[in-house]
Every structure is written in structure tokens, then in C-alpha cells.
């Protein structure tokens, strides 16, 4: 469950003929349980792509499919983790996490069990009764991930989820996400500006060209990760020192650089 398909997707903001094209002919196939990161210059339409899968934004042309069905509206089969967390400030950590389950009318015992499990998984147990504003940014984003994860969605959509965090917290969260992805693999669409983050987390990295955005190149990371056994390393910096990692990162950097230079010129 959870295959995502962009089929010749275009997006025009504003009026159909006088507006400006944000996306053009985007084609991308994401397999079930695959982790795909999208990188690209600012304003190239990464967020727009993700919002289309979430059902927040309509397509102007082409189709976006999840599980072979055209996306029409938001739904809990496609959970979103936002850069700015978007937790409900009047609900406690626990209430935030269980809100989606209550929407689904999950029976109480089952609900409590699921929430307890995810609280433990995300090491949030001691904060279960805190309000979001009482937590650090890293903690808040953990809650947002827990809130999405607890629904057991087919697809996880993450738009620069660690972009608002400081460097150290960010590293911890990246390691955590890899751990989570190993315990319970999901289809993940992950947007980031940080090339290292993309290479460290993703099975494949899709590089977008500048406006109107399109998928310029898709780079396979998984083959190298498996053959070089990146997952055998506990720490992110150990992986980042590997020649195989540096090689991939540089390759993506160069590809991105072409785009940025083009903007300047």
C-alpha cells in the first residue's frame, strides 16, 4: 500500500491562461514503502507537489495517484508532517496524537494502546500531558510525527520537517527517522533543502529544476546504501564520512548548482 504516481502533472497558479506555471510535466513514480526525497532550488514547486498528494492543492493538468486512485481530497491515509509542526495548541501531547484516532472512532482500549506505543516509540511518555508551547521544537516535531504515525498511514508526507530545528536536534531527528523507517517502513515523500539529509534518509533522491519545476534527475541511493552497509553505522557522521556518501552528495550538489547558477544568470 502507498504507491504514489505523478503522471505528467502541471500546475498553474492564478488564471488558467494568464497565471504563471509553477510545475510542468512532472513525472515520478514512488513505490510502496519507498523513501523518496525531493530537492530543488527555492520556489521550484516542491511544496506544491507534496500538497497535491496531500489533497490540499488541485492539479492544473495531469494526474496524481495514490494506490492507483486519483487524489481528490485530504485523508488520513496520507499523513502530513509540516515544517511548522501545526500542533493544536489547546490540546495536550496525548490529545494531539489521539485526535486522528478519535476521528476514526477507534475503540478506546485500542486507541489507548496505540497512543501509548507511539509515545514510547518517540520517547514522549514523560511529556504526554504537556501542551505544545511547553515543549522544545524537536519535541514538538516528534509529537507531529507521532500524530501522523499513529494512524498507520499508507503515505507519510514531510515538507522540510526538520527545517525549523537547530543543527543538533536536526541530527537526532534524522537518526530517529531512519530508526522509525526500519521498524515500520512507510512510503515517504520527503522535501528538504539539505542535500546530506536527502542522501542520508532517502532510497532515491529526485532533483527538480527551477521554475516551472519538473523532475530533472532521479538518483538511486538505496543500491549504494545496501552495498556499503550504511545502516550498519549508528551515527550519522560516520555515514557522512564514507566515500560512497560523499560521492553521491557531490553529484547531487553539482546537479543542483547548475540550477542555481541558471537563476543568477
Amino acid at each position: 500500500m502507498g504507491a504514489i504516481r505523478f503522471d505528467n502533472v502541471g500546475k498553474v497558479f492564478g488564471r488558467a491562461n494568464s497565471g504563471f506555471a509553477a510545475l510542468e510535466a512532472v513525472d515520478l513514480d514512488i513505490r510502496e514503502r519507498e523513501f523518496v526525497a525531493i530537492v530543488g532550488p527555492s520556489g521550484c514547486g516542491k511544496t506544491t507537489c507534496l500538497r497535491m498528494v496531500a489533497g490540499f492543492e488541485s492539479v492544473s493538468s495531469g494526474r496524481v495517484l495514490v494506490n492507483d486512485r486519483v487524489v481528490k481530497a485530504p485523508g488520513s491515509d496520507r499523513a502530513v508532517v509540516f515544517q511548522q509542526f501545526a500542533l493544536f495548541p489547546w490540546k495536550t501531547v496525548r490529545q494531539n496524537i489521539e485526535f486522528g484516532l478519535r476521528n476514526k472512532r477507534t475503540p478506546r482500549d485500542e486507541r489507548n494502546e496505540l497512543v501509548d506505543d507511539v509515545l514510547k516509540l518517540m520517547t514522549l511518555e514523560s511529556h504526554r500531558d504537556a501542551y505544545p508551547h511547553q515543549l522544545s521544537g524537536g519535541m514538538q516535531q516528534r509529537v507531529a510525527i507521532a500524530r501522523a504515525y499513529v494512524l498507520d498511514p499508507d503515505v507519510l508526507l514531510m515538507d522540510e520537517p526538520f527545517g525549523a530545528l537547530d543543527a543538533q536536534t536536526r541530527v537526532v531527528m534524522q537518526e530517529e527517522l531512519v530508526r522509525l523507517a526500519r521498524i515500520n517502513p512507510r512510503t515517504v515523500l520527503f522535501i528538504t533543502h539539505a542535500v546530506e539529509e536527502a542522501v542520508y534518509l532517502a532510497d532515491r533522491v529526485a532533483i527538480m529544476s527551477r521554475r516551472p519545476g519538473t523532475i530533472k534527475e532521479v538518483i538511486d541511493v538505496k543500491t549504494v546504501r545496501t552495498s556499503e552497509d550504511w545502516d550498519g553505522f549508528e551515527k550519522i557522521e560516520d555515514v557522512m564520512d564514507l566515500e560512497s556518501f560523499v560521492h553521491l552528495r557531490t553529484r547531487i550538489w553539482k546537479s543542483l548548482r547548475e540550477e542555481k547558477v541558471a537563476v543568477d544568470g
Partner: protein
Amino acid sequence: MEERPLYLTSTLLYGFAGLVVFFGVWFVLPTTGLVPVQFLPSPITVAERVATLTTNRFAGATLPAHIAYSFTRFISGFALAALIGIPLGLLMGWFRIVDEIAGPIFDGLRFIAPIAWVPFAALWFGTGIGGPIMIIFAGAFPPCVINAYRGARQVDPRLIEAAEMLGTSDMRMMTNILLPASVPSIVAGLRVAAGLGWQSLVGAELIVASTGVGFMMVQAQANVATSTVMSGMVAIGIVGLLIDIILRWGEAAIRRRRGLNA
């Protein structure tokens, strides 16, 4: 951090000075004969009158009993306005169609002053409890609707999207997202509603009631008992102030809980 206590003291001081001047002028005018005492009884006379009225009946009841009548009507009308107005405001804020249907009617009606409903209140309810309640309702209803509506429209769109991706139904969107997110705006609306409701209540009682502070004041006026009229005014002012203090305190408590500066 020495500034704040200093600032606070000076605020209190100014407030106190204002009161002294106010009561001073009020005291001086009738006692020196500048204004005849029948026109303006001195504060001391009024205080004595308030004391007498707490045990002695005037216009059928003691002052506390009149206040109790007024307050019961106020709470009924105010609660009715909140119970209907807040859900209506949220519905208008969430469903465009409700906004389009109810909006124009509401916009027209809200410019009619509550007191303008008095003839109908008298016609429909006589001096029964329904009349004053209807008039308070007319005063308190618009701020309830408007502030719930504004609150709902100003909810952070990211929170609405977060709720949507969590599979939230329209009903739960209103009760669990729009309502709590609008609480600060709604409480601000309730404060305005309480003020308008309480004001229009006393106006209504002047005409369509046989108890209550307003009624007591009309009766006193007919007897040229100016100190009793003023006792009524004092009661209105103090009860109104208390209602506002309670709502303000509630507002601050909610903001604190949300981590907003109070």
C-alpha cells in the same frame, strides 16, 4: 526589573486620584448648594440609601432582590445569545453557504438597537420574563455571532489542513478545531455582549417589567426619589463591572493556558 512595580504603583495612584476628584466634585456640588440636593444627592446620601434599601423594600422588593431579578434575566438572555450565536457564527465561518444565506439578514438586523425591540417585547410578552430576555438577547446576540465568525475565519489555515489530513469531519472540525481556536475571539465577544446585554436589560426593565433594578428606578423617578435612582445606577455600575471582571479573568486564564501572553 524595578520598572514594573513602579509603573504599577503609579497606575494605581492615578486611578485613585481620579476617584478622589470624582467623588470630591460629586460631594462638593450638592453640599455647597451649587446644585440643589433634589437634583444631585451627595454620595453620602446615596450610600445611606443603598444601605437602607438592602433591608427595606422599595417598589416591591429590596435592592438585592431587584438585582437578583435583573441578573436572572440577564443570565437567561445572555446564555441564550451565546448558545445560539456562537454555533451560528462557527457555521457561518465554516460553511460558505450558511454565510451567504445568513450573512445579509444578520447584517441588517444587527443595526437595530436592542431598545427598538421594546414595543414587540411588550406586545408579545407583556411584563413577563420573556420581554427583558428578548431585549438582552437582541443586545448580546450580534457580538456572539460576529466574534465566533471572525474567530473561525482567522484560524491558522495550517491547523485546518492538519485536521483535514487527520480525517476530521465537518462536525468535529467545528467543535474541536474552530471552536477552541476561536476561544480568545469568542470570549472577547462575550465581554462586549455582556456589556450590551446588561445595558439593554436595564433599559428594558424601565418599560417591560414589574421587578428589577430598572423597574425600581422608574418607580423612584415617579416619586422624585433621586437618591433611590442613584442607588440603582450604582448597583448597575457595580454589577456590570463585576461581570466584566469575571469574563476578563476567564479570558486571561485561557490565554495563559495557551501560552499566549495574557
